């Protein structure tokens, strides 16, 4: 049982990061009713941005957030108007293949620009180890978790207390009813998409010092994020938070006991089981799965 504090600490840190990626996805999924297959590629681009800033200008990725946030808003708006908005009212098939197409374009743009090599951002102080309650964690992990937690809390408060946040939650529940209540749902969709992009932009900057970056890195994380979103329930931020912790525990504890080779099977099996048994997720509202009807 000596490993227990270490496992718990690792799982919580990982969970915080998964949560940030997943909250972005659940908002876009919940509010727009579009599965954004390119979500992982947005994350990948942000990780490359962190590496680029560090390598060329020596900018620390945590300072680089000041660049990543405005950059993600510009990039997100561009993608929204050019690619996403024209298909908002279209069939599932059109939406799925549009975002898949976007994901193919972005992945291969990265491959073209930066080759397929794995890159690792090494912060001079990132590997320093801190011991908390018997668990050893690195500085980069602690900063990533703290920033992710603060960002999530701010987002949560924003959704809860501001007009736009409330409008967004209302739109997620029932787009037609929200329109009838005088909510400008067109604007809400844009804001949801931008918040989603913002979440992965922040996550990418935090993750660049922790994980290797390569053109298809997004796919790995977006699949995890889908698991989290489905577990937590469509459009539910609290659900995404809890779902992220569950998946992170399966990841870390499963990796320790079952072996890293098989842990992924574990959460995909959980994913399919939850989807089939309770499509609205563990914490979502029933009926929410009837997308676009």
């Amino acid at each position, binding site marked *: 049982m000596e490993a227990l504090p270490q496992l718990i600490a690792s799982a919580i840190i990982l969970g915080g990061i998964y949560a940030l990626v997943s909250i972005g996805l659940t908002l876009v999924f919940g509010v727009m009713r579009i599965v954004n297959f390119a979500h992982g590629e947005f994350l990948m681009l942000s990780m490359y941005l962190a590496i680029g800033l560090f390598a060329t200008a020596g900018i620390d990725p945590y300072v680089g957030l000041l660049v990543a946030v405005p950059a993600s808003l510009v990039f997100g708006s561009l993608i929204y108007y050019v690619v996403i908005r024209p298909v908002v009212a279209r069939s599932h098939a059109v939406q*799925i293949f549009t975002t898949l197409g976007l994901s193919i374009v972005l992945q291969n743009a990265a491959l073209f620009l930066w080759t397929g090599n794995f890159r690792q951002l090494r912060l001079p102080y990132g590997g320093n180890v801190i011991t908390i309650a018997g668990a050893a964690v690195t500085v980069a992990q602690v900063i990533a978790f703290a920033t992710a937690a603060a960002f999530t809390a701010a987002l949560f408060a924003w959704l809860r207390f501001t007009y736009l946040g409330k409008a967004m939650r209302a739109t997620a529940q029932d787009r037609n009813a929200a329109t009838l209540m005088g909510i400008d749902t067109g604007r809400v969709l844009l804001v949801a998409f931008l918040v989603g992009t913002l979440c992965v932009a922040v996550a990418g900057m935090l993750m660049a010092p922790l994980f290797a970056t390569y053109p298809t890195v997004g796919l790995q994380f977006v699949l995890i994020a889908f698991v989290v979103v489905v577990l937590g329930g469509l459009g539910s931020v609290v659900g995404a938070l809890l779902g992220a912790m569950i998946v992170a525990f399966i990841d870390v504890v499963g990796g320790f006991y079952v072996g890293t080779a098989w842990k992924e099977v574990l959460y995909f099996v959980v994913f399919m089981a939850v989807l089939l048994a309770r499509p609205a997720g563990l914490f979502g509202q029933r009926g929410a799965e009837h997308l676009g009807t």
Partner: protein
Amino acid sequence: MTIHASAGHGTREHLPAALLFAGALAIPLATDNLFLQDAVIFMLLWAGLAGAWNIAGGFAGQLSLGHAAFFGLGAYTSTLLKLHYGLSPWVGMLCGGALVVVASGFIAFAATRLRGPYFALVTIAFATVMQIVAARWYEFTRGNEGLSIPFDPTLANFMFVDKLPWTVIALSYVVAIYALASWIGRSRFGFQLAGMREDDNAAQALGIDTRWLKVVAIALSAFLTALGGTFYAQYVGFVDPGYVFSLDLSVKFALMCIIGGMGTALGPVLGAVLITALEMVLRAKWGGERSGLYLIVYGVLLIVVVRVMPEGLVAGVPQAWKRWRARHAA
């Protein structure tokens, strides 16, 4: 989406397909160019696989993004049976087909409970699990190293030196799927599928057992996909989990079918020919040192085509032509 099940009858309807098939057969007879012969075989294989996807995705409207699971299971079953037990790949192909029919039961079960993006996500997860198992079960599958099939060309080994027998087998595969799709298009089964695709609840209200329809359509689609998997393994002589179970491959089957036209017999053939030709041209032009560039074009094309012609080329081009004529006649 309009109902294509009532599309025109007669021989004229099959003329474009007949010309494509005759052309495919003529190439290995007319030229010794190995590149061209190889291109034709792949076009036929992808046409068959897109056609197999079409039965579940097009006719039944179940947008699977996990058909690589069936393809990979087909490829691995025949290859493993051959390498471990010396069984002929022809028998292995049928074993693979039988295995995926069982496996497809899971996808069909998911189809009866989930719709749209949720169903697509389960199929992705299913294929991903298959991929991980094939990659990690090292003693049996040699993991990510993949499996090579020793080259020993005999009919019983499902291996040939000449490209002609390969072309004939691939062509028979495509023609059979094309014929099946044409039959579905005008059969009671096809009309029931179309009803279910347009409105599941309404179809049920009319007394159609949509659950059973989904099970049959998905099993048929999976079976045909597995046959293509075995053909691929035999022709290429190598299988690895990173390719045969990949999401890219699942997307490719669906993409070719969508670009050509879902729920039509000709659509997947046309889509496969165009996409494969495009891939080859782009790769020849920008492959190699500038890897990735051709896939960028491919992705952009996907986004544009599904937006401009969501019904695919088979329905979209005549419509666009009619509109153009109407505008210029006045």
